[in-house]
């Protein structure tokens, strides 16, 4: 029986597994459903990874190979091609692989299944359902793993960093984006969107709503509305970029507690889930941070799990961290009393659902212990120091007073 099973071999999972071994945990097994480690970094051919954690830059599959070496050198048992299909309440995992199915039970489980972009269906986009509508992740897999392209003249939706990566992938693989659309009034990541799309000759349109996707077999056009005016963009594909969601299906299906704000598991300050045998790290916690961030998070959670293994699983009922609108999410979103040792998180991570100006505050049992006024932007990380006294509080609340 392994001491810890880590599910997911991206930066967070590998970092957690390595940290567990370095902390002296004897049997650490890392499972990944893909044939190689790396998670989402495997097909991100335009993003550099590894500078903070390994002291040099790796691109795409090379970073995954580096993670694999790091895990092997640390003595982690790495099982690729292993898909976890259920998370039992007792730390028992059902696993599928080429040889059939197995059950694996561990003293603790670290979930690091990452995030993925939401598909067209989850956006409830209107129109036909032809071939040629896909996400950046799928496009990158076409290019990186199969040497194929799904379209030549796509319309791209989104203005996150991944959207720029999508444009680059298109331009370097013989596709010419027709336009870049953002439903909001502003690009979510501002600086490059002011000049980059124009630089490469792709019109950037904000405040745009898709009103129809047209095509009986393959996409032939997308109809858009911008300020009450409708136009048709002819294209042969629609690329949905960004709008990530945690890969939390196993939690949903196993009846584990999912946080409404993050879409990932509810976790306490050690990264421990509502079920105290489970921990979580990386972009499963919230959409999304960089690979480097996920790696550091995994390392910290790994250390917290190693500490937890020295004791019986926690029996403390967690306190839920509450928040005012328009705060979209808080991580960690649970607090357990008396949690000792190094916590998995030393700061709260917050995000806003929309642009808002006002006073953000943290209250413990009704007493303000931290506050800051600011102009807050959506999908930008806000870090709030976590006072030690949080572990004794009965009510943990993030308040927001919006300026009139």
């Amino acid at each position: 029986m392994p001491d810890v099973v880590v599910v997911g071999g991206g930066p967070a999972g590998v970092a957690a597994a390595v940290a567990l071994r370095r902390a002296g945990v004897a049997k650490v097994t890392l499972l990944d459903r893909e044939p190689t480690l790396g998670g989402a970094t495997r097909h991100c051919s335009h993003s550099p990874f590894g500078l903070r954690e390994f002291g040099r830059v790796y691109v795409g599959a090379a970073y995954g190979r580096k993670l694999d070496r790091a895990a092997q050198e640390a003595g982690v048992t790495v099982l690729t091609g292993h898909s976890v299909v259920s998370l039992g309440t007792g730390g028992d995992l059902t696993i599928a692989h080429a040889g059939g199915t197995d059950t694996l039970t561990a003293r603790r489980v670290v979930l690091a299944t990452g995030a993925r972009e939401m598909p067209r269906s989850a956006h409830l986009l209107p129109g036909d359902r032809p071939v040629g509508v896909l996400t950046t992740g799928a496009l990158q897999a076409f290019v990186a793993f199969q040497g194929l392209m799904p379209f030549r003249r796509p319309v791209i939706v989104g203005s996150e960093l991944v959207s720029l990566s999508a444009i680059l992938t298109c331009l370097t693989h013989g596709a010419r984006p027709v336009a870049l659309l953002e439903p909001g009034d502003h690009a979510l990541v501002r600086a490059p969107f002011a000049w980059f799309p124009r630089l490469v000759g792709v019109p950037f349109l904000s405040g745009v709503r898709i009103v129809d996707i047209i095509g009986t077999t393959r996409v032939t056009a997308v109809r858009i509305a911008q300020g009450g005016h409708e136009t048709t963009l002819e294209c042969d594909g629609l690329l949905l970029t960004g709008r990530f969601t945690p890969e939390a299906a196993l939690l949903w299906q196993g009846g584990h507690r999912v946080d409404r704000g993050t879409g990932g598991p509810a976790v306490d300050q050690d990264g421990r889930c509502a079920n105290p045998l489970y921990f979580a790290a990386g972009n499963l916690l919230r959409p999304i941070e960089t690979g480097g961030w996920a790696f550091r998070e995994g390392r910290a959670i790994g250390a917290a799990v190693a500490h937890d293994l020295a004791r019986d699983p926690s029996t403390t009922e967690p306190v839920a961290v509450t928040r005012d609108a328009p705060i979209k999410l808080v991580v960690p979103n649970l607090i357990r009393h008396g949690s000792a040792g190094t916590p998995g998180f030393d700061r709260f991570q917050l995000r806003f659902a929309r642009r808002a100006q006002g006073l953000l505050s943290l209250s413990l049992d009704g007493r303000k212990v931290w506050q800051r006024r600011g102009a807050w932007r959506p999908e930008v990380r806000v870090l709030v120091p976590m006072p030690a006294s949080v572990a004794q509080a009965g009510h943990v609340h993030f308040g927001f007073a919006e300026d009139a």
Partner: protein
Amino acid sequence: MANRSAADGAFDLAIIGGGVVGCAAARRFALAGARVVLIERGADILSGASKANSAILHTGFDAPPGSLELQLVQQGRAEYLSIHRDLGLSLVETGALVCAWTEAEAALLEGIAAQGRANGIDALRLLTGPAARALVPGLAPHLHAAVEVMGEHVIDPWSAPLAYVTQAMAMGTVVLRNCDLIAGRFDGEWHLDTSQGPVRAAAVINAAGLFGDVVDARLGLPPEFVIRPRKGQFVVLDKAAFAHVPKIILPVPNEITKGIVICPTAFGNVLVGPTAEEQDDRTRASVDSATLQMLVAHASRLIPALRDMPVTAVYAGLRPGTDAKHYRVTAHPGQRAITLGGIRSTGLSAALGLAQHALHLYGTFAAPLAPPNDVPMVQVPNLTETATRDWQRTGHGDIVCHCELVTRREIEAALNSLLPPGDFGGLRRRTRAGMGRCQGFHCLATIAAMTRGRFDTPLAVEG
């Protein structure tokens, strides 16, 4: 293109339309000994009305008493129950609750139960709100009362017709896809002019669904009805929703529609829909955001735990409604033709019954057929959660679609089957690859590579 006729130059029967009704008819006539050609205009079978339905195997409890629809739903259901195991087809014995959410609806339940009993369905009972909620605890507290219909079941709506047509093909039925019927002429036998050349047949069945009236006209048959397409939009909720919906949740129907159903699927999801929207277009079934939001909100109002469930898929289908509610089944003995038209929303349940009925009608004008001595058995792969899936066995290669746990071996088997998929939709229906919550984020590229050169509309662009 070459004449697609059988060895002696002609078929006994040409079926126009490869939907569930056409596939069932092909099987029934092949079993009876007919040489059958099935003509489908789409790139794959089930390209029209049959690709989108609510996957319920109905009892007929709410069908009009004494109607042909009731008779054929019950015959079709009985045959399905007797053959499904042999064909490898699923049956999820969920049962249904007709739920009354207001006092006014509750007053109608007695009548619904009485009609069900009059239709020969005894396995039903009236329940108080609390009793119904004991069966489905997730139902909202404002439930007034319900009728439980034990015999309403859920099946795999795509594997069933695939099994029917595959068994027919194993007995020699020829399936022509991407084959449009242009015109037909009867001079003692049928001369069909198709986009793939001439086809000769002794008799024809029009099972053209949304084009039923058009095909009647092209065959020169007298006009009996006009198709009025009725669109139904659906939302598929994540498998996590399944635990909250152990039974089919039906509304009290009104004159126009059976209403929005919340239905567990054989694949372990939950389906919400359909809407009923009249339109003229016979091919375009588009979804719209406001309606999809309405469906999600509707489901959450009736079953509050569904509120935060992720949406896995959305789709819309067109039902071949006509200018009247009933089935439009007509035999033209003089022209040796049968039209199976206006099969609106019970086609999946009634298909095998319609096929029996068509054979009966055929017997009124044609010489008896000689059934084959040997009936080949076929089994379609199980895609449902009710039996062992391929990923649970050894040697499947690897899992290509993680959301739906579809193996490389399953996809290869579909691509090399007797009737390989003609497009990506066909592959999805045969394997479930790409049908899951990520809608291809992880698997689409692999599937694009595995299907190169296979589809008219490829997943990857070439050149």
